């Protein structure tokens, strides 16, 4: 079994016009997906990254440069990530295909995590 990370790319403003009831069903679908995977022991973690206040850090000639961003107005940001356990990429894809993130217009970057030695 290997660890895989699902990096959740999304457009932050994509769903903001939804009505409360529709928001409820979107959240409900994620909850159901997480619960199902969790019960099967396949979902091992997941965190939301804060939408506001991000910083880009670079170093120029040894001098730290800090710039605000990415902003929630951006075309696409990483909204957060899920961690899953799967035998190989094929199985990880199989597990990820039902992730509601895809249904609601986001992209998933699926990456295997190198084990620490």
């Amino acid at each position, binding site marked *: 079994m290997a660890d895989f990370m699902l990096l959740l790319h999304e457009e932050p403003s994509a769903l903001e016009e939804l009505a*409360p*009831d529709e928001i409820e069903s*979107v959240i*409900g679908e*994620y*909850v159901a997906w997480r619960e199902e995977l969790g019960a099967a022991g396949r979902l091992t973690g*997941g965190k939301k990254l804060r939408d506001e206040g991000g910083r880009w850090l670079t170093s120029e000639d040894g001098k730290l440069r800090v710039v605000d961003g990415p902003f929630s107005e951006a075309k696409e940001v990483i909204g957060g990530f899920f961690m899953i356990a799967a035998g190989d990429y094929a199985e990880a894809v199989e597990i990820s295909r039902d992730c509601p993130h895809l249904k609601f217009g986001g992209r998933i970057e699926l990456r295997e995590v190198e084990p620490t030695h």
Partner: protein
Amino acid sequence: MKSTRLKRVARTESQEVRAVADLLFRRRAGQLTATLVRVLGVQHLDLVEDVVQDAFVQALRKWPISGLPENPAGWILAVAKNRAMDLLRRQGRWAEKRDELERSILPEPASAQAPSVYFSEEIEDDELRLIFAMCHPALSVDAQVALTLKTVGGFGTTEIARAFLTGKSTVAQRLVRAKRALRDGLITLEIPGANEMPERLDAVFEVLYLMFNEGYSATTGADLVRADLCNEAIRLAELLAASSQVGGPKSHALAALFLFQAARLPARIARGGDLLPLDAQDRSRWNRHLIRRALEHHRRSAAGNEVSAYHLQAEIASCHTLASRFEDTEWGRILHCYDQLSELDASPVVALNRVVAVAHVRGAEAGLRALYPLKEEESLQSYHALFAVEAELLWRVGRTSEARCAVTAAVALAQSVPVRTYLERRSHDYLEAYK
């Protein structure tokens, strides 16, 4: 691109999922709006809507990935409250409104045992005030319906458009125009005084009646938003009926009417999706729980002397719903109600419904005689039911070829697919008999 995403959030497949979360977002949005409108003022409805929407969008951003907080409703309230405070601070009205906001928006207790502040009588009063403001006679009836659904009901603009089969932009325009009237201070947020009450209540009843009928006349099971319209109309009618200040026999009559009708909804559609008329419905599928509630309202509606159009319609609905078999339907009583109803409301549609009762009591020939004057009615010329009723009566008296002509006209005029399918099936029956 955005619109395709919105469409993909169809609710048809998510019923099961909704039971998992069961957060009642729509109700919460309505209640939160009602409370914030009291604190911030009805002329700031736009602001209130932004605050409420923002709180739900923040939940949408966080909860799918990080999971639900321990107390989801409390979380939403806290976010909305903070946002409202920010706005008040910016407007320099913080000091003046602070206490009211603090007092009004208390976090919900985390434990289920503790009594919930959120469902207190005060919230219900907030909702009642908001209903009266949104159903103000100074606004157009269309706007009243849209505003009530949006603010009190927590429906989205897209949902309202879908429920009323109009464009989203049409609904949005109605809302914008109505909000201008609110900003201009024409409409106050209060439960009307005794002298104004009957007229203002009638405006509210009319809005709820439209809301219910719009949902009820939708016979496809596909779009749940329309069933939600019925449920919201029932909820608000019962809210009015339960209020000591507002409720009266007429509110109970309206609630009884809605509940008797809604009780039969599950049996109206056959397994294959076909529309079933009353005589073909499996009555064991009628909702007993709703019938019990209807009966209670029906009983209470009899207090006092007034016999309103809602009383008569509730009585008619009760005759249909309480008959254990179609053959047991008390058509005599139904006809008597239609006679009285025609005196209160001389509309051709009421007269057409009366024709059906006449035919059941006095026979199809008598029904046809009552129908003929209606064929001259301008407003019924594009109404499929006029021709469907005529076809049925003609068929019963053996004038089969005329029946076929009439049913063809009815099919051409039918607005919804299930109604058209049903009429086409009848047309086929007439044809078979003809052979």
